[in-house]
């Protein structure tokens, strides 16, 4: 006999999203570096900034108030409107 159950999930349908094409060059790209406030994340990001700047990119730095909570909406919006690429330093 057919049984009907109720879906216990948040019922979010997550559509498959294709990643953007890789940029042909870093030259002229505005790259956001997001520090999530984990110890020594800045060491990693400082080195990345050197390398990216050397490759002709413009680097902008951002920082989450705390690594334990999602980035605030305003910060995400700021990055999305100011940058063409973003790199997040996930953890120490």
């Amino acid at each position: 006999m057919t049984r009907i159950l109720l879906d216990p999930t948040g019922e979010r349908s997550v559509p498959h999203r294709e990643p953007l094409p890789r940029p042909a060059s870093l030259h002229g790209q505005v790259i956001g570096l997001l520090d999530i406030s984990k110890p020594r994340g800045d060491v990693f990001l400082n080195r990345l900034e050197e390398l990216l700047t050397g490759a002709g990119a413009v680097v902008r730095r951002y920082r989450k108030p705390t690594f334990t909570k999602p980035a605030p909406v305003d910060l995400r919006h700021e990055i999305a409107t100011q940058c063409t690429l973003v790199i997040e330093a996930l953890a120490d």
Partner: protein
Amino acid sequence: MSRGTAPLLPDGLVVVVKRECETCRMVAPLLAEIGATVYTQDDPAFPEGVPAIHDEELAVSWHHEIETVPTLIRVVGGVEVERTVGWARADWQRITGVTGLGADLPVMRPGCGSMSVDPDLEHHLAARFGGSALHSRRIELADLDDDIEAMFDRGFSDGLPVVPPTEERVLRMLTGTTRSPQDVVAVVPPDLVEVTVEKVAVNAVMAGCLPEHLPWVIAAVEAVCTDEFNIHGVLATTMPVGPVLICNGPGTRAVGMNSGVNVLGQGNRANLTIGRAVQLVVRNVGGGRPGEVDRAAHGNPGKLSFCFAEREQDSPFTSLAVSRGFAPSADTVTVFAGEGPRCIVDQKARTAEELANAFAACLRTLHSPKLVLAFDAVLVVGPEHARVFAEAGWDRDRLLAELHARLQIPGSELVHGAMGIADGVPEHLRDATLPKFRDGGILLVHAGGGAGLFSAIIGGWANGATGSHPVTKEVHR
């Protein structure tokens, strides 16, 4: 009968009866005389001599909320204008307009229960005819599906079998609260999805809750989804913590929670299912699954369920909830981001001072003897230990003050490298004295079995604004 469409009653007089009811059999001879449309619940041949309509599926009875048979209704223009239940001669005479109706019958006879409110049937009927009140997506299982395996396959389980959330079970669960099924309880991290009372009820069914447990689950879900508790961080941390639910108030006894023997262990339905339901909401609605946002290196068995009640009835201490500003009569849930419990053993102390020394020595080692101020703890004082403090006249405030006084640690014992341990505080704090816990960082609870000179410590996660702060919510039916 399709769900949700109420069958209209014909104009005039309507009577609902069943043969099994003695009062129905008594009034049966009158039904032809008053020219009523008769619906019969159990036997299509009853009453004899009247062309009764068999309400076989009980659709008419359910939709028109027949609770007693016989029920006499007067309908005008498709709308009920008057009803009486059982046999009350004056009411029947007034509603039918037949003077002298049933003059030879007693003045009054109570009726019998309608089949539509039979406890074995009512939730089935509610699902069949009222199921459209539920908004959750339906999952249809095929004939050959095993219900339990199907739930595992879809990723809905915490690793143990779950109760399949049928419409009947979810509707029955919702009788545990006066809140509307579509009320939003909270926004659940990490996916930040709004969770309704209905979705909480679905997961409470899966956890094995009874309807009276639902308000506790709702309050705990509200609490864990606050910014202060920070369930996102509690999930994402590599530390082994999860929500620990500490319940207070007379309702803990009313719903059968355990605060005594084996209080932090297995065997009590209310404790286990309420804690489990909260975790299932986080998993299924919020999307907080191990290996995804839940990055715990080890976790702990309490992440299946960790919920218990304070033993208030014979506690020498003010309860945790009262110490947090709630009335003794309030039912509350306090959520704490905690790891598994560890035991404090002291079977020799006969003075409060000796026992406080033992407590402090154990508390000092929480997470690391070298780390201070970063973590809170729940201190579960067992009744035999509590008696030692009570006999010395120590109340909650005195015991906590004595513990904090014993947990002031010289910086020389805490700096990097001290005790041969690299972890610790910076060298410049060598001459400082640092407290192990912040103010309010020890949550004292009285719980456990009556025999055993033991207590327990439940260690916390990072405290404060970037970590988790304990949150208490009142439980409302």
